[in-house]
C-alpha cells in the first residue's frame, strides 16, 4: 500500500488542499483538469497535470475511464477523490483498485454499506445510535398511531407512503387531533397517490444539523474528532460552519461521539468520515446519514484539534496506524468557516461566474483561507459556486466570531458577486451571536437578511456614505457655480475604476 505519486480526482480549492498535505508528507501530486479549468490554480500548483478533454462534469471529473487513463499515463499509484464528484462511488473505488492503485478512502464495501441510507440506518439502530423515531412501516389503524404517539411524543408528522411534494402530510400536536388527521391523511393518500398507506415519524420543528468527524485506520482503530455545527443552511446548502457546536454539552458530545465511532467500526470503516445528526434538542440527536469522504468544512475540525485530516487520510491509506487514541484528541478553542460563494446574496443568491478582477484575502493571526482564486482568474460556470473558505480560530466562540468579522472585512473580491456580505449580516444577528439557531434560521430571518443585504441607499446616505456623496456633490456644486454651462464630455473616474475592476 505504499505509494509515491497521487492523482487528485477533483478540482479547485480541495485539489489544492490535497496537494498541500501530499507535499507535507513528501509525496508527489498529479492534477487533472477540464478544459474549463485550464487556468485553474490546481493545475499549476500540483507537480504534474493531465488534461481531461471537455468541460461538463460528466465528461471530465465524473468520467471514470478518462481518470483511469490519466492515472495510467501519469504513473500515479494512488488516487485522492476530494469531495463531491466520484468521492462516494463504490464503483470508482473498485476501478482504481483494479488498476493497481490505492484509493485514499474507505473500501467500496464500507462505502456502499454506509452510503445506503436504509443499510446505514439499520446499522445505527443495531449499535444503539438513535434514529428519528416513528412507525416501522404503514400504520394499521388510528389505535396503532395512538400507541406510537404515546411512546414517541408530539409533535408527529403523518406522511403518505407514496407521497411527495408536501401533499398528503399532516403535523399532529395533540391527542385530540390524532384521529381526524389520520383519517384526512389516509383520504388524501388514496385520492392523490392511489394507496391509503400512511406512516408516522416524530416531527422536528427547528432542527440543528450537527455532524461528527470520525477517523479510522485499517486496523480497526478509530476516534471521533468532535462535532461541527452546520445548521446555517440555505435550501439545504451549508453556508457557515463552526466547531464545536454551541448546542452540545461535553457529556452529550462524548455520548454521541462514542456511538458514532461504534457504528462506523461495525461497518469496517477506514479513513475519514462524517456522521450527520439531526438534533431536536441536545438530548435528542438522531442519525441522518454518513458521508464517506472528507467534508468541505473539515478545516474547522483541524483548527480545534491540530490534526491534519487530509494528511491522516493519506497516512491511513498507506497503512499507518492512528498515532492517537480518543483521549488524546484535543478540543481547543473554537473555529468558524464562512463559505465564499460566487453568488449575489442580495439577488436571491444568483450565481455569478466570471472574471475576478481584483482580490484580497485576509491573513494574520488565527486566520486561514483555502481558495483556488487569483486575480485574473475567470470562474467557470460549469461547476460549484464555492470559491473560497475563510476560516478563523479563537480561544472562545466570541473571539472566533470577532476574528471572522475582521477576516471578512479584509476579504475583497471584485468582478464577481460573493456571499461575503451575507456572512457579515449573519455575524451581526443577536440570535446567531447567542448560538441559538436552527437549520431554518435563514428562512425565518428572511426579512432581516433582505434589509441588511439590500444595499440600502438610505444607509449610504447616512454615515460614511454621506461623506462620499457630500464630497462629490460639494465638488460638483462648486464647479457648477464656477462654470455656468456644459462642460466638454469627460470620462468619469468611477467609470474608469469600474472598467479597471
Amino acid at each position, binding site marked *: 500500500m505504499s505509494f509515491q505519486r497521487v492523482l487528485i480526482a477533483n478540482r479547485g480549492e480541495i485539489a489544492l488542499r490535497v496537494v498541500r498535505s501530499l507535499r507535507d508528507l513528501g509525496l508527489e501530486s498529479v492534477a487533472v483538469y477540464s478544459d474549463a479549468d485550464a487556468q485553474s490554480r490546481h493545475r499549476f500548483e500540483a507537480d504534474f497535470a493531465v488534461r481531461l478533454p471537455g468541460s461538463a462534469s460528466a465528461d471530465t471529473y465524473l468520467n471514470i475511464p478518462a481518470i483511469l487513463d490519466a492515472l495510467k499515463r501519469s504513473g500515479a499509484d494512488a488516487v485522492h477523490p476530494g469531495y463531491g464528484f466520484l468521492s462516494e462511488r463504490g464503483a470508482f473505488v473498485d476501478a482504481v483498485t483494479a488498476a493497481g492503485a490505492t484509493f485514499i478512502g474507505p473500501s467500496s464495501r464500507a462505502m456502499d454499506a454506509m452510503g445506503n441510507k436504509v443499510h446505514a440506518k439499520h446499522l445505527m439502530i443495531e449499535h444503539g445510535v438513535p434514529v428519528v423515531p416513528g412507525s416501522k412501516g404503514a400504520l394499521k389503524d388510528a389505535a396503532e398511531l395512538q400507541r406510537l404517539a404515546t411512546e414517541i411524543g408530539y409533535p408527529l408528522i403523518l406522511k403518505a407512503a407514496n407521497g411527495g411534494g408536501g401533499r398528503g402530510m399532516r403535523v399532529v400536536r395533540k391527542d385530540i387531533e390524532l384521529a381526524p388527521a389520520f383519517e384526512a391523511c389516509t383520504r388524501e393518500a388514496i385520492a392523490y397517490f392511489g394507496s391509503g398507506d400512511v406512516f408516522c415519524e416524530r416531527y422536528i420543528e427547528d432542527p440543528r444539523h450537527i455532524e461528527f468527524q470520525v477517523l479510522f485506520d485499517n486496523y480497526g482503530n478509530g476516534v471521533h474528532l468532535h462535532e461541527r455545527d452546520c445548521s446555517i443552511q440555505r435550501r439545504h446548502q451549508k453556508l457557515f460552519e463552526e466547531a464545536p457546536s454551541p448546542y452540545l454539552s461535553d457529556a452529550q458530545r462524548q455520548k454521541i461521539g462514542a456511538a458514532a465511532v461504534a457504528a462506523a467500526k461495525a461497518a469496517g470503516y477506514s479513513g475519514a468520515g462524517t456522521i450527520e445528526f439531526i438534533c431536536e434538542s441536545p438530548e435528542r440527536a438522531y442519525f441522518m446519514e454518513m458521508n464517506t469522504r472528507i467534508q468541505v468544512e473539515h478545516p474547522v475540525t483541524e483548527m480545534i484539534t491540530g490534526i491534519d485530516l487530509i494528511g491522516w487520510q493519506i497516512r491511513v491509506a498507506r497503512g499507518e496506524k492512528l498515532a492517537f487514541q480518543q483521549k488524546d484528541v484535543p478540543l481547543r478553542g473554537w473555529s468558524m468557516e464562512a463559505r465564499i460563494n460566487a453568488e449575489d446574496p442580495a439577488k436571491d443568491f444568483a450565481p455569478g461566474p*466570471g472574471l475576478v478582477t481584483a482580490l484580497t484575502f485576509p491573513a494574520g493571526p488565527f486566520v486561514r483561507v483555502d481558495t483556488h482564486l487569483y486575480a485574473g482568474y475567470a470562474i467557470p460556470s460549469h461547476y460549484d459556486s464555492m470559491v473560497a473558505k475563510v476560516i478563523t480560530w479563537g480561544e472562545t466562540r466570541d473571539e472566533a466570531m470577532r476574528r471572522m468579522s475582521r477576516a471578512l472585512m479584509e476579504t475583497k473580491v471584485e468582478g464577481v458577486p460573493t456571499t461575503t456580505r451575507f456572512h457579515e449580516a449573519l455575524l451581526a444577528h443577536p440570535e446567531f451571536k447567542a448560538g441559538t439557531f436552527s437549520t431554518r434560521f435563514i428562512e425565518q430571518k428572511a426579512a432581516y437578511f433582505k434589509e441588511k443585504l439590500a444595499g440600502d441607499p438610505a444607509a449610504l446616505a447616512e454615515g460614511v456614505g454621506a461623506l462620499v*456623496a457630500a464630497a*462629490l456633490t460639494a465638488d460638483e456644486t462648486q*464647479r457648477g457655480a464656477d462654470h455656468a454651462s456644459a462642460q466638454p464630455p469627460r470620462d468619469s473616474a468611477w467609470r474608469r475604476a469600474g472598467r479597471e475592476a
Partner: protein
Amino acid sequence: MNWLVKIGGVSFELELPDALPGAEAEPLPDGRRLAWHARQRTLILTAANGVEHNLRVRSAALSRWAGEAATELSVELLASAAQGIVSLTATVELAAPGQSSRGKTEAVKAVQIRSQITGKVLKVLVGVGDHVAQGDPLMIVEAMKMENRVFAPQAGTVTQIAVKDGDAVQTGRELLRLAKD
C-alpha cells in the same frame, strides 16, 4: 461628463470629475480632499487637518448595456464606525442627461428582460404572443449546478425571444421583450 445620479429616491444632476482627484488633489470647498487609489482600491477622504479616512472598496461593478446610455454603478465600501465594523452598499444609476435612461430608448411600452447571470438557457417556458402575469416564470437559466428561474417583472405580452434552449448567455444579455398591457 454630466451624469444623472439617483441615490435612493433623490436624483440630481452631477458632473463627476474627469478623474477622481489623485493624491495631489485640489481641496474641496470645505477643505476636504477626496483621492482614489486605484491599486489599493481605496477612496481616501482627507479632512482639513490632514487626517485621512480610508474607505476601502470591497467590490465595484459597472454595468453598461450595449446601445444604452445609462450606466449602473454598484460600490460596496468598507469603513470602520465608532463601534465595530460596517459595510455599506449602494447602487448608483448614472445617466447622461438629455439621454434617456436605461430601456427608455426603446418604445416606452417595451420591457427588456436580461440575464442576471452567466450560464446556459436550460428551457424557454414561453412563446412569442404569450400573455404572462407578473411573477410568471419565463425561462430557466442554469449556472454552477443551480437552476435559476427568470420571472416576469410585470404583466404583458411576449413580443420577442432572443435566445433558445441550450444557448450560453452572459450577464446582461437580452433574453426576451415584454409589451406592457
